[in-house]
């Protein structure tokens, strides 16, 4: 068994890294397990790694998503956070110190901060995986380049879908936004920008019923959500941006989850005292980088209070942090 740590943070988006900054400045010597790239859109740094320009994170205007994440990560490391590029495979929150495993490697900590975020939802059609990388994509910034002069579609009606559609007009001949409702869910500024773009067409009240193509994507079958009528739209590319689901599988049976898989929190406290959750894994409402960072801060402060009350931390360093607040 390894040494017991004050706090282990699982996840490395804005929530996890902000928690790491606060915990490090409180001299808790946090270990942050940042994960490992896996699957569509699941990577250290979180969702901002696939975005372009940041416009709504105070002070970060003009930065690209990955640049902001690199800066926040660097800030955490500067204050002494220990970051390991490992993906947690198992947890045991039934006894304290809590157990966290990466394969056979075991870690123990008095408190845990869960910040595993959310990952992109897929359409749930078999052919989306068969044609993934052959016209179907979940990352406009990665793959827009391949669709120069082509006709493409974006599925979704939120901010992420609008951002992708607008970005893709830099390459594509046309971009059709396919949305289930007759009105966008995106923020006004993003919706206005997309609606005003000549290259973007909207196919309202439709969902993707099938993805067609032998070797490469050729078309999608659309089903009208009101009449049920089916139609075919010829496209070379299909970008899926229909939202996210919380990455909480690891915590099933360990923490209370709601019906959609979000970790149930009061403030940032989970159903297990000493285990805190922050960011998108517990937030079905706001899901912003800034709210994630805010709840990450809350989780670190609460973990610090918990440690002061429950474990008079022998591992705590002798010299307190001297940096100004």
């Amino acid at each position, binding site marked *: 068994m390894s040494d017991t740590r004050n706090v282990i943070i699982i996840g490395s988006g804005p929530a996890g890294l902000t928690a790491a900054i606060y915990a490090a400045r409180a001299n808790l010597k946090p270990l942050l397990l940042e994960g*490992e*790239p*896996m*699957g*569509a*859109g*699941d*990577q*250290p*740094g979180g969702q901002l*790694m*696939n975005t372009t320009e940041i416009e709504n994170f105070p002070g970060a205007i003009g930065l690209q*998503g*990955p640049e902001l994440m690199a800066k926040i990560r660097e800030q955490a490391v500067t204050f002494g956070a220990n970051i390991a*590029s490992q*993906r947690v495979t198992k947890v045991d929150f039934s006894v304290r110190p809590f157990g966290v495993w990466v394969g056979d490697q075991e870690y123990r900590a008095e408190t845990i901060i869960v910040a595993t975020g959310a990952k992109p939802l897929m359409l749930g059609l078999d052919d989306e995986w068969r044609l*993934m*990388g*052959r*016209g*179907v*994509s*979940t*990352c406009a*910034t*990665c*793959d827009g*380049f*391949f*669709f120069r002069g082509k006709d493409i579609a974006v599925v979704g009606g939120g901010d992420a879908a609008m951002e992708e559609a607008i970005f893709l007009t830099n390459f594509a001949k046309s971009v059709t936004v396919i949305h289930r409702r007759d009105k966008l869910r995106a923020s006004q500024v993003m919706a206005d920008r997309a609606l005003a773009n000549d290259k973007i067409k909207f196919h309202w009240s439709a969902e993707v019923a099938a993805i067609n193509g032998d*070797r*490469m994507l050729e078309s999608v079958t659309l089903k009208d959500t009101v009449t049920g009528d089916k139609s075919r739209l010829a496209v070379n*590319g299909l970008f899926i941006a229909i939202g996210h689901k919380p990455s909480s599988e690891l915590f099933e049976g360990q923490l209370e989850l709601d019906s959609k898989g979000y970790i149930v929190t009061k403030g940032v406290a989970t159903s297990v005292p000493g285990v805190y959750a922050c960011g998108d894994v517990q937030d079905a409402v706001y899901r912003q980088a800034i709210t994630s960072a805010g709840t990450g801060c809350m989780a670190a402060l609460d973990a610090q209070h918990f440690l002061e009350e429950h474990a008079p931390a022998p591992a705590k360093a002798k010299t307190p942090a001297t940096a100004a607040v």
Partner: protein
Amino acid sequence: MIKTIDKTTFDGTVLKSDKPVLVDLWAEWCQPCRAMEPTIEAVAKEFEGKVTVAKLNVDENPELAQQLDVMSIPTMMLFKNGQPVNRLVGLSTKERLTGAISAALA
């Protein structure tokens, strides 16, 4: 060691290789591709001498990417005896890559 290949060296390094070849298709502006770099380096080290690991910049070699039917990056293609035997689209863990390579070596 990771070899940088392009359309002029692809045939010699990949198709005519007597060892399996893992080709990492990437571009500068692809953040997930950058995120994969440490994983690729670790894999190259682990299979040194048994498998050739090569990087192909799709931005500089778009025709070749098109010939390979690649329209999304990161994509890892595994070649054996000049034939593509596996293709992993999107982010891959080291475990997933080493599994695919071990299968090609078997």
